[in-house]
């Protein structure tokens, strides 16, 4: 076992982790630890754009962005945090540009912007161009640019080190325990502050846009240390994933004029009961639900569980004309196949590779797919982790990015707001952790800091049952997708909770083939499955308990939003005997809850 000492440890090297690392390392001795090479992080998969009211293409205001985000969150977002994020947005996008990020450009040479679901001109209600983008590779460019800056600034990395546990002494962070994948050796990192930026947990579901590595490790680790998880029932299902595979087709496709089509060839989003005003550019929960209902009513293509996303130039031009959509200069909006190709190159590549479909010629088969965790480790605006309903700060523990819940996304995140969240709060966490570290001493390490982690691994390694982790994982994903997915019912969720508990029991009797130490990926996959099971349980129980429909949490049996009883954040603790819940109030500044129409 090796021991290292750093003032600040950043766990995770996605957009949030790199931003935190970059800022923390300016003033504190910092190490960034990641189980993947940094550039393999899932931030690189983000396609559509990062939201900021730059007003490069047309008039836009920070307040509109704020309001859209509040509305998009179905009023569950904390408004102080949302205001902060939206005000920081333009500055931080310029900062990224100054770091060299190659944004697409307008004719004047400014950062190009495109419309995205839920982002509107508040005066006219028309979709506004707010998403700053680099073709359909915005996340890739952010990840690469931040990594490049870290190389430039000599940030210390520990690549392919997986964090297994946090060390807590006197109620304060004292470091983390990691395993070096290449050797199987445990390393203890003694630190004053720990920032979790471990990303999402979309691997709980069967059809997902998320990477294999998105197993919610940060949330699972903090849950084990008595830190609650906030709003876990709110998980976003993206409307347009490639049928069966779940690979994301960015909302940017609809931003460029693509429309959703059902079996009858109708553009169903225009229906009165869905989103007659902004139609296909309604926020994601609304669209996913509409798709679910269409398919439930037998209007899936050929009666199957998918619909068409159509971005063929003739379709786009037809509906753009019907909607009276115009360019910023007032001329009617039209596109050619080349425009589509240059704005959405990767999407076209995905479709050709995986479906053999050329989107310029044929529509794409899509279905809603698990995408983004609104919930996570509760934090405040400074990135500090808060552990109860009174927002008590746990000293030295920070979180940022998808793994955290500030909460700026409330019950439903608007597209482009996550990349924004990463950089804004990644920076906050980095700056504040470094400052905290400067004003405090190292906590003494306990006698055997790696003990609990070693025990966890030993249990998995020596477990001598007959269960394969792949079987348990597959069953968990299936039940979560079927019953804790786009639409939820009491009966389904109850079944899911029971099933998860059964799987957790079976998980104690697994058998692993790999007994080695060098790159024992099976062992680590088993450990990750344990995390997913914990998170699945917390998610299902939180969802089962919330008896209303709000944002991404849509229930058959309680179809309405219930502000009287449920305008509050869920806090869930994982204990020996199950999940314990509590609630904390939502912060309001100036936006009163209204009925949400798009």
């Amino acid at each position, binding site marked *: 076992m090796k021991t290292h000492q750093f003032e600040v440890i950043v766990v995770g090297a996605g957009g949030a982790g790199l931003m935190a690392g970059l800022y923390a390392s300016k003033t504190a001795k910092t190490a960034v630890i990641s189980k993947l090479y940094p550039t393999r992080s899932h931030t*690189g*998969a983000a396609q559509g754009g990062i939201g900021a009211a730059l007003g490069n293409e047309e008039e836009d205001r920070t307040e509109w962005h704020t309001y859209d985000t509040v509305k998009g969150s179905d009023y569950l977002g904390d408004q102080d945090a949302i205001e902060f994020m939206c005000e920081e947005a333009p500055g931080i996008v310029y900062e990224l540009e100054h770091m*060299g990020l190659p944004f697409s450009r307008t004719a004047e040479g400014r950062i190009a912007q495109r419309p995205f679901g839920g982002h509107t001109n508040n005066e006219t209600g028309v979709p506004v161009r707010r998403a700053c983008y*680099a073709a359909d590779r915005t996340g890739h460019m952010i990840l690469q640019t931040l990594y490049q800056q870290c190389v430039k600034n000599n940030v210390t990395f520990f690549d392919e080190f997986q964090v297994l546990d946090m060390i807590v002494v006197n109620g304060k962070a004292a470091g983390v325990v990691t395993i070096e994948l290449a050797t199987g050796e445990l390393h203890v990192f003694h630190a004053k502050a720990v920032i979790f930026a471990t990303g999402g947990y979309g691997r709980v579901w069967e059809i997902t846009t998320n990477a294999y590595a998105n197993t919610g490790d940060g949330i699972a680790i903090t849950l084990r240390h008595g830190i609650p998880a906030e709003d876990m029932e709110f998980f976003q299902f993206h409307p347009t994933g490639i049928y069966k595979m779940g690979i994301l087709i960015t909302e940017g496709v609809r931003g460029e004029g693509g429309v959703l089509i059902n079996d009858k060839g109708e553009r169903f989003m225009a229906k009165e009961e869905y989103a007659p005003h902004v139609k296909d550019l309604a926020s994601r929960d609304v669209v996913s639900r509409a798709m679910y209902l269409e398919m439930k009513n037998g209007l899936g293509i050929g009666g199957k569980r998918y619909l068409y996303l159509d971005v063929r130039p003739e379709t786009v031009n037809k509906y753009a004309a019907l909607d009276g959509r115009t360019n910023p200069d007032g001329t009617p909006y039209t596109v050619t196949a080349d425009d589509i190709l240059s704005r959405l190159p990767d999407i076209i590549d995905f479709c050709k590779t995986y479906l053999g479909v050329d989107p310029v010629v044929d529509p794409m088969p899509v279905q809603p797919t698990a995408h983004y965790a609104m919930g996570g480790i509760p934090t405040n605006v400074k990135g500090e982790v808060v552990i109860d309903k009174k927002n008590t700060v746990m000293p030295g523990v920070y979180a940022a990015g998808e793994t955290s819940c500030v909460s700026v996304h409330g019950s439903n995140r608007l597209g482009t707001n996550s990349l924004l969240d990463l950089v804004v709060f990644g920076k906050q966490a980095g700056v504040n952790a470094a400052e905290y570290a400067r004003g405090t001493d190292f906590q003494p390490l306990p006698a055997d800091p790696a003990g609990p982690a070693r025990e966890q691994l030993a249990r998995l390694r020596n477990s001598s049952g007959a269960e394969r982790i792949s079987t348990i994982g597959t069953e968990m994903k299936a039940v979560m997708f079927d019953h804790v997915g786009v639409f939820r019912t009491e009966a389904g969720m109850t079944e899911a909770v029971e099933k998860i508990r059964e799987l957790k029991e079976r998980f104690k009797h697994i058998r692993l083939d790999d007994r080695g130490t060098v790159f024992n990926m099976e062992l680590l996959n088993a450990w990750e499955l344990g995390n997913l099971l914990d998170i699945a349980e917390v998610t299902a129980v939180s969802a089962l308990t919330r008896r209303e429909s709000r944002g991404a949490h849509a229930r058959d049996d309680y179809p309405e939003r219930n502000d009287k009883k449920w305008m509050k954040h869920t806090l869930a603790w994982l204990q020996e005997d199950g999940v314990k819940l509590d609630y904390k109030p939502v912060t309001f500044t100036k936006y009163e809850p209204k009925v949400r129409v798009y």
Partner: protein
Amino acid sequence: MQVTLKIFRYDPEKDKKPHYDAFKMEAEPTDRVLDLLEKAKGYQDGTISFRRSCAHGVCGSDAMRINGMNRLACKTLVQDLGVNKITVEPILGLPILKDLIVDMEPFFDNYRAVTPYFINDEPAPAKERLQSPEDRERFDDTTKCILCGACTTSCPSFWANDQYLGPSAIVNAHRFIFDSRDKGAAERLAVLNDLFGVYRCHTIFNCTLACPREIQITQAIGEVKKAIATGKLD
């Protein structure tokens, strides 16, 4: 359809020499090779080790030799290969740590050698630095790199000698050299105008054929060579 997946195996804790294991399984023509690897690992032999994450060709984890050629396992469908015997082996020219996992450090060392980051010490404007769409387009191709290493490890020059910076590093230098906002071109060209820079490239083209992002790598290298020869960056 029935396929046979032949996997290169090497466990440093057990084996002196590598060997191959074959796994038979049912597969759809639209399955990714990565899906087959997962199936083999999940249901037949848990010790098979490989890297993967995004599963759709954007993270660069799973470059490997599939039927003799570098590709991403997640971007290669069974039907693309046209045969039902599939052989997967680690990429060439980097030390093999276990099964399909190689030591990427030499690769990243070469990457870091080309100062792969934006350099412009002039004070930044209050808003963005302006760049025309044409200037942006100039280096678009090389911004797509995901550092998967498929190119560098397909290059016979790199096999011969890993001091050669390799196509990937040159691609990442190109991305900045031709960025109109960047001021570090001279510095980078100096690194590439060297024994282990562009002169080790003999336009063998394996890199371009291997690149899962379809970057015109040989062309990018050619542009760098030309920039060195002429001192012009347009």
